[in-house]
């Protein structure tokens, strides 16, 4: 009997401690906590280590090529090292991250759309992504970043579009579809250098020069041509992209609401095939065509972005109702997509007691270039088969991001994909069938370790 008293006491202590531990667990920044103080000690030395997993379970119960469900995930490890704190190297930051991509996405086989319904969608692999050094000058008014870098870290980024899962709201189609291998963006970073200069607190110009094709030369899936992300190509063509960002406060009532407005331009020095004409200026769908497309020297485009907070519940923060709008254009003769626009609204703290949650509604539109549209018309004319005319792909997304803990979010998501695949012509297998408008439902879970 007496022997059971310590056990009872221990049980009582554990019972008393468990709620506190559970409470702590849901308060801490990461699932694995402070590693017995090691994490804080490392951060004090300028070393931030972390990992995270994003897992998407998505299904299309209606439309698309066929009905199905798919599961895909992306595990990331990263290190950010403040070289000033670590080594006394003032103004230096070293960054590295790598991905383990697993599962399969819904877009390729089931929905048939151009832009993946999940922005983590990629060929399964374990790959290095970013590996770069950043050096700041003049009290952080100027910074230079060099190494294996991704343009979608800093270019064509909308603050309020980050909520959405569909890849149309990330690295946009005007670059992701048109550039070789999708350009220097997830999941393929590439050697490059970028310069950022803050001309004033409100005016920042950023310019970057990247390898023009993040994957080695060859055919097929570019991600398989560089399966581990270590090709570190420094030859070939170049991609230049520049962006001017202006931060402004817009007075609404008695509040001044922050906004950000950007204008950007890019140029690629590579050779780009015409989407319709061959080297003899005949349609590629013409039986008399030799099949070798006309080659354009270089490609280019421009874009604008607006992010504006429209209303905020807490006047001391930047959380509230935000609006975003992004537009980009490129020549339609050499690009599959010649116009892209997306926009939407996101509201932080939509429910009482859920201040960290977000809900958003976004819509995107990708317009197929004029040459591609004409090609589908030519194909119908020459083949005699009534194929659908290439036109556009659009996505409408409604998403709710619930922050269960600072390290754990759950995000139910609904998407409507209009004209999946944009009804493009397939010269090899002309078919009148095109994927129907698709409904995609699912949930994202993300955990920060």
């Amino acid at each position: 009997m007496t022997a059971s008293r310590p056990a009872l006491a221990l049980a009582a202590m554990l019972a008393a401690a468990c709620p506190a531990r559970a409470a702590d667990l849901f308060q801490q920044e990461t699932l694995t906590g402070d590693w017995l103080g090691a994490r804080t000690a490392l951060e004090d030395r300028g070393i931030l280590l972390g990992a995270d997993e994003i897992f998407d379970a998505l299904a299309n119960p209606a439309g698309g090529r066929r009905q199905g469900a798919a599961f895909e995930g992306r595990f990331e490890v990263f290190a950010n090292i403040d070289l000033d704190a670590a080594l006394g190297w003032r103004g230096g930051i070293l960054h590295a991250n790598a991905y383990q991509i697993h599962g399969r996405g819904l877009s390729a086989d089931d929905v048939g759309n151009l832009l993946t319904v999940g922005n983590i969608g990629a060929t399964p692999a374990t790959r290095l992504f970013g590996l770069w050094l950043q050096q700041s000058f003049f009290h952080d008014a100027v910074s230079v970043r060099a190494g294996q870098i991704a343009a979608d870290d800093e270019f064509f980024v909308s603050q309020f579009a980050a909520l959405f899962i569909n890849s149309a709201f990330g690295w946009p189609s005007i670059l992701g579809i048109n550039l070789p291998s999708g350009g220097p963006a997830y999941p393929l970073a590439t050697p490059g250098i970028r310069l950022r200069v803050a001309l004033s607190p409100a005016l920042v110009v950023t310019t970057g020069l990247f390898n023009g094709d993040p994957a080695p030369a060859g055919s097929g899936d570019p991600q398989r041509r560089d399966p581990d992300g270590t090709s570190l190509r420094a030859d070939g063509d170049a991609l230049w992209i520049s962006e001017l960002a202006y931060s402004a406060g817009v007075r609404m009532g008695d509040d001044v609401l922050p906004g950000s407005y950007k204008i950007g331009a890019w140029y690629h020095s590579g050779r780009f095939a015409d989407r319709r004409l061959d080297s003899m200026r005949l349609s590629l769908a013409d039986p008399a065509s030799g099949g070798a497309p006309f080659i354009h020297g270089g490609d280019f485009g421009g874009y604008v972005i607006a992010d504006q907070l429209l209303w905020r519940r807490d006047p001391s923060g930047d959380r509230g109702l935000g609006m975003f709008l992004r537009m980009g254009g490129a020549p339609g003769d050499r690009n599959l997509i010649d116009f892209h626009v997306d926009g939407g609204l996101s509201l932080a703290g939509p429910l009482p007691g859920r201040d960290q949650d977000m809900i958003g509604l976004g819509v995107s539109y990708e317009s197929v270039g004029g040459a591609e549209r004409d090609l589908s018309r030519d194909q119908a004319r020459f083949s005699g088969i009534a194929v659908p005319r290439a036109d556009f792909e659009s996505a409408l997304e409604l998403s709710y991001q619930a922050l269960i803990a600072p390290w754990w979010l759950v995000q139910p998501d609904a998407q409507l994909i209009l004209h999946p695949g944009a009804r493009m012509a397939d010269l090899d297998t002309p078919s009148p069938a095109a994927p129907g408008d698709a409904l995609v439902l699912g949930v994202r879970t993300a955990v920060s370790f």
Partner: protein
Amino acid sequence: MRSYRLAAPICAFLLSVQGLAAAPTALSVEADGALPGFRAGESISFLASRMGAAGVTGWTFTPAFAPDTPPPNRIEWRIELDPYAGGNVRQFFPMPGVQRMFGTHHLLTARVMLFLGGQYQTLVYGEALVQGGAEDKALAGFVDDLTRQLLGEKGAYRAIDMSPAKRP
């Protein structure tokens, strides 16, 4: 018996002097420029509140919103946001801490000046990376540090002159 007769008024005197010395000096807090994450007026309230919680003794802080004439005993904050080109990394979901080294912060320069009896006394200044808003611990710590540097036991004001003649 005689010694007790003398001790009482001496103690009373000492206690009264001690009481006078402990009476805190009221300082009005003004600000030129707004902190990120605040409306203009709210910056002053935040600064006054944080300064009161910074652990300096002998002072109280009251926000002064655009007074017609400058209060004789006051703190003037001059706040400037600096150009900042720190850069970003893409995040697919909000991960706490990841952006601590990158772009979402403001580089802030602040100069804090002390006036007593209408006379300028001394100043401190500092620079910090802050996110802004009342919940920003870095911003709160920055205000606390500058307050202690100016008015703390080893602060700039104590260092310049300890003679009673210039003390309020």
